């Protein structure tokens, strides 16, 4: 049932103007002379013919149209065209015969039906961040827009004071299909809550059979001709915001991001691969009191050939002694020392020169002269024990890790040398004689680099998607 019209004289031209909101009508525009009436005053005059053409609505909605929305009958009684620096939008005021107003905000991607509400958690729009929470139910709403809109045209009637040139600050946020709008000034903060609806649905409610017009392409603002009588293009403004991520998507993104971050941290820490690629175990032999240590590499003291694979990262050399038991007694300790060398065979020409030089100096040619030490690792192992204030204690040191890099992958020779620490060199029953040494080589995870790149890809993917959602 249409709203009952009451006729009021326009204070500008005296014409009889139909008023539909009765006593609640605060502002009405005379369709004949364009006077904006408020109470007994004319607050502005609009050139209706020119402005109607200039600010024609994008959709097929028009004043006076009726619709059943959300279970109630409404009639359009007013429209406000507001303009920002680069875009504009229409707000339609709909009124029911029980005095219930709703606002249809029209944007490119559809409509939002708004009504005023009092939030459980009032947000200060001047200081609000990127997310706001207004309702007691539901999570935070994401702020998608804030600014100041200027009324450039109005037609029909309104239950509040409005006139061309007025500016209103606004902040808009969304959560799912729920929309929030805060309109504020120095005198008032008004909260509106709404629901996004697509144009097709709105058209159906109004019984409009015409197809929903396609949004016009956005034109750069500097191409606009403000003095032109031609209608402004309807830009891609206030488009429907992206739907927020579902809980499942959020969890997926979080897992992928954390996984990527973990891989990056893992690779940055230089952790080794779990399995060694070379491992040798030697039985320790003490030096039996001699000054020199013992070559463990093999029985004859010859080095072991080891090929280091190509890599841009570091190797881990892990030296591990077998468990070292205490020798008993009130206290004591022992230790043994190890040196591991990576050797590279010298080029024959160089070797010849060195041999010739030694001959010239009348020196004996060392059997190791054919090798050049390219990397050396020294470590010591030990066990100490004793009794302190009646408590027995012991300490052992039986694992050493060392990272090293080499520029030239390829064949190397491994030489392992060991000796007792000086204090225990001559002890006949040195427990070190029962020990063994394991030399293991590990490739660093950096060598394969898959963790690094996988981490980069995963973290980058998540950041890319989030940036796209935030900045577009």
């Amino acid at each position: 049932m249409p709203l009952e019209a009451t006729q009021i004289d326009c204070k500008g031209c005296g014409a009889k103007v139909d008023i539909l909101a009765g006593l609640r009508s605060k502002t009405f525009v005379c369709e004949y002379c364009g006077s904006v009436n408020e109470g007994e005053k004319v607050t502005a005059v609009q050139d209706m013919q020119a402005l109607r053409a200039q600010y024609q609505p994008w959709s097929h909605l028009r004043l006076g149209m009726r619709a059943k929305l959300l279970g109630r009958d409404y009639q359009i009684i007013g429209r406000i065209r507001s303009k920002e620096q680069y875009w504009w939008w229409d707000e339609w005021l709909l009124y029911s015969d029980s005095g219930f107003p709703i606002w249809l905000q029209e944007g490119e991607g559809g409509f939002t039906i708004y009504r005023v509400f009092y939030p459980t958690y009032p947000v200060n729009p001047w200081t609000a961040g990127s997310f706001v929470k207004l309702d007691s139910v539901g999570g935070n709403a994401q702020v998608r827009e804030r600014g100041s809109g200027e009324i450039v045209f109005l037609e029909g009637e309104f239950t509040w004071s409005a006139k061309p040139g007025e500016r209103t600050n606004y902040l808009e946020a969304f959560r799912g299909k729920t929309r929030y709008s805060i309109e504020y000034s120095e005198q008032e903060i008004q909260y509106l809550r709404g629901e996004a609806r697509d144009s097709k649905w709105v058209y159906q409610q109004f019984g409009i059979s015409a197809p929903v017009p396609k949004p016009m392409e956005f034109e750069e603002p500097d191409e606009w001709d403000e003095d032109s009588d031609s209608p402004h293009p309807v830009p891609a403004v206030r488009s429907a915001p992206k739907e927020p991520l579902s809980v499942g998507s959020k969890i997926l993104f979080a897992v992928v991001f954390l996984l990527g971050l973990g891989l990056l941290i893992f690779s940055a820490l230089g952790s080794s691969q779990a399995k060694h690629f070379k491992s040798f175990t030697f039985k320790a032999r003490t030096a039996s009191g001699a000054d020199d240590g013992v070559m463990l590499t093999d029985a004859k003291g010859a080095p072991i050939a080891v090929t280091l694979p190509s890599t841009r990262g570091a190797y881990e050399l892990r030296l591990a002694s077998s468990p070292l038991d205490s020798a008993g007694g009130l206290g004591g300790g022992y230790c043994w020392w190890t040196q591991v060398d990576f050797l590279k065979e010298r080029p024959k020409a160089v070797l010849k020169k060195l041999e010739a030089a030694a001959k010239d100096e009348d020196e004996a040619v060392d059997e190791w002269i054919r090798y050049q030490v390219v990397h050396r690792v020294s470590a010591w192992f030990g066990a100490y024990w004793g009794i302190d204030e009646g408590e027995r204690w012991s300490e052992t040191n039986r694992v050493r890790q060392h990272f090293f890099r080499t520029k030239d992958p390829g064949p190397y020779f491994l030489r392992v040398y060991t000796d007792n620490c000086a204090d225990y060199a001559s002890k006949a029953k040195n427990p070190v004689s029962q020990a063994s040494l394991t030399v293991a080589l590990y490739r660093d995870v950096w060598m394969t680099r898959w963790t690094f790149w996988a981490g980069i890809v995963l973290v980058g993917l998540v950041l890319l998607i989030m940036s796209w959602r935030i900045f577009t």
Partner: protein
Amino acid sequence: MPTQQPNMACPSCGAPIDAARRFDEVYHCEYCGNTAYFTQHLAAAGPDGASAAQGAPIAGLYSRFKIGQHGTLRGKLEFNVLGMVQVEYPSGFWTEWRLRVGEQEYWLQEDEGIYVLFDSRPIEEPLPPISAFQPGANLEGWNRLPRWFIIEVAQGKVIGYQGQLPFPPNIGETFTYVDGLGGGQVISMEIDSDGSSAALSVGEPLEYEDIQVAAEETGGW
């Protein structure tokens, strides 16, 4: 149904008056349209005889409510609409409906489609300076109220009334009002134009669906 008392009648036309209104100071007769101001014994007519015109029925007020109507709040509390006051403010108009709910009376504010059921609260502490009331400001620890966030400060003006009211409204009277939100409630204060007195109300916001009005088409939101 309103109860009536035989010896209570409109001093102007003699129509019966609802007995439940016997302590009211002002009564607007639904039959003859005149307004009567009563003493506590419900005897005297308006002192200046000018009230009938001021209290003339307000036409064209679209609302879910009308005087004499009944309904329920949240499906439980039955109410009757006793009277109304229409207020103009810079942004528009609001209506204060006087409701009787059980043995109590409340103001139900209707403004741009939102409803708040207000109950009055005593002011036990000195009023903060008016400069403290700015939209966006918080007021904390005053008059045993929860912290409230001020959303509106403006001037209101009484432009009309109808029905039975607990006081005689002065048409054209202006006042400053301060509205705020705190603790899930709406807090409203009205301060006289000369700042000499103030009234404080705390209200509960109601959704459209929270109010069922007799013989009204139900709608959803």
